[in-house]
């Protein structure tokens, strides 16, 4: 809503408002073009959802934004500076929470990992851990090991660890994909509330088209082989969003139709 749709396809966008900018980004891995080419901008505070058929490189695009991959063509910039490596302002929520958490550390210990790394003095950590756990609805579970928690709780814990970094940007790779429908809806609303409170920018990759519309300010659809931008929709739905009212909104249904048609055509 804040960002006009046109900014998306500009080849060399003005860096003034873009927090993350993909500038003719291409990626070739082992002689195979995975992405060719993506240009897009994400402005501060925006929630951008990325959808696409499998093989469209949406996870790869997210890893480029995280600095975990370097593009073979074009450039990825964060606040105008080229991304050479991951940065602390950018947190990544991985889909496989079971692998991303340290099984030998408790919930508190997992959050502490991020706090230790950003150099927070030990005396301040405990209060911050309690605060973060409460924020994601895990108050009272500090001493539990990840394996003692349900999938939803583990993903909440991973989100809390990401928030411990005090990130400006949250990159989320199908974070709720492995969860059941009820848990997923609950986490969607919690995430929106958290993001509204922190003002963080979110890039959210998902294969769930309705989830993309429900969460996003904008939805970008990627085309496969090689990955490139095929569609871009501005989601003009009132916030805060509501699981029933938003999903019944005529605009929601219109966007849903457009997105389904796009995916069907791209396969």
């Amino acid at each position, binding site marked *: 809503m804040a960002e006009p749709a046109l900014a998306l396809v500009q080849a060399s966008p003005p860096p003034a408002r873009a927090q993350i900018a993909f500038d003719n980004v291409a990626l070739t891995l082992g002689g195979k073009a995975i992405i060719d080419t993506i240009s897009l901008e994400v402005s501060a505070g925006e929630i951008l959802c990325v959808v696409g058929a499998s093989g469209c490189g949406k996870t790869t695009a997210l890893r480029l934004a995280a600095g975990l991959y370097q593009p073979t063509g074009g450039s990825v910039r964060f606040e105008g500076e080229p991304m050479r490596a991951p940065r602390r302002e950018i947190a990544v929520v991985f889909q496989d929470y079971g*692998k991303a958490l340290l099984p030998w550390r408790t919930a508190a210990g997992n959050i502490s*990992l991020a706090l230790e790394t950003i150099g927070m003095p030990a005396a301040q950590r405990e209060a911050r851990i309690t605060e973060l756990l409460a924020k994601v609805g895990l108050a009272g579970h500090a001493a539990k090991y990840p394996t003692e928690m349900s999938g939803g709780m583990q993903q909440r814990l991973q989100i809390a660890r990401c928030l411990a970094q005090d990130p400006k940007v949250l990159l989320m790779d199908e974070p709720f994909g492995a969860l059941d429908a009820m848990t997923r809806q609950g986490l969607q609303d919690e995430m929106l509330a958290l993001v509204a409170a922190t003002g963080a920018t979110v890039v959210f990759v998902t294969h769930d088209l309705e989830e993309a519309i429900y969460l996003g300010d904008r939805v970008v659809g990627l085309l496969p082989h090689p990955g490139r931008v095929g569609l871009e929709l501005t989601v003009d739905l009132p916030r805060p969003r509501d699981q029933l009212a938003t999903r019944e909104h005529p605009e929601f249904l219109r966007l849903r139709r457009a997105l389904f048609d796009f995916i069907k055509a791209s396969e």
Partner: protein
Amino acid sequence: MRWSVLGWRLASFAVAAGVIALWQFAADHRWISPVFLPGPDRAWASLMRGFTSGDLLAKLVGTLTHMAYGWLLASIAGIALGAMIGSSKTMRLYVAPTLELLRPLPVSAIIPVAIAALGLSQGMALAVIAFGSLWPLLLGTIHGFAAVEPRLYEVARVLHMPRLAVIFKIALPSAAPDILAGMRLSLTVALILAVVCEMLAGLDGLGQWVLLSARAFRSADLFAGVMLLGVIGYVTALAMSAAESRLLRWQAARR
């Protein structure tokens, strides 16, 4: 639940008591000549005598020292080398064939080599014990470091963790179950090799005690030494399991 645990423990004690009773019975009725088989009463008396005179205690300390130093040396070398080899795929490719060649080598075969090189010395015993007990540890550590979840390394990269922090906060705890399993196997090997080295090199220890007792047909002393070795094996294994379950508490949560 509690009662059945207690019941099994009592039953296992009863079996042990039965074996000792049978041993006593066999000795009393001279099924085997007392020159070769002393009764548990005589073995026990010899054990007590050995301790009061201090002879046996000195041998016990000798064996424990050989075992502990060799094992510690193997642990330090095994974990350091294993971490280096395990965390690099190139290193694994280069070093693996050599390891495969050295690993099945019976350590007893290298004892003469060690004696030729280092003489009948404490240093020789240390080298042999450390070399022999290195393998289970080294292979366990390599496997542990190679099997660290790659996603965790990515988490570390995103957090900008310094290299040392990655090793101590991610790789080492992740490999800990494999390392500790290796250390437990090494402990057994270290005891065996400590005894063998003491026998072959005449170093102060239970191995030498057992060998000399046997040669002099002092069967009670022989059995006292063997019993003591059994106790060492049992107690060290017990201590190792206790350390393991304490360090790996998080694994109990998984079950």
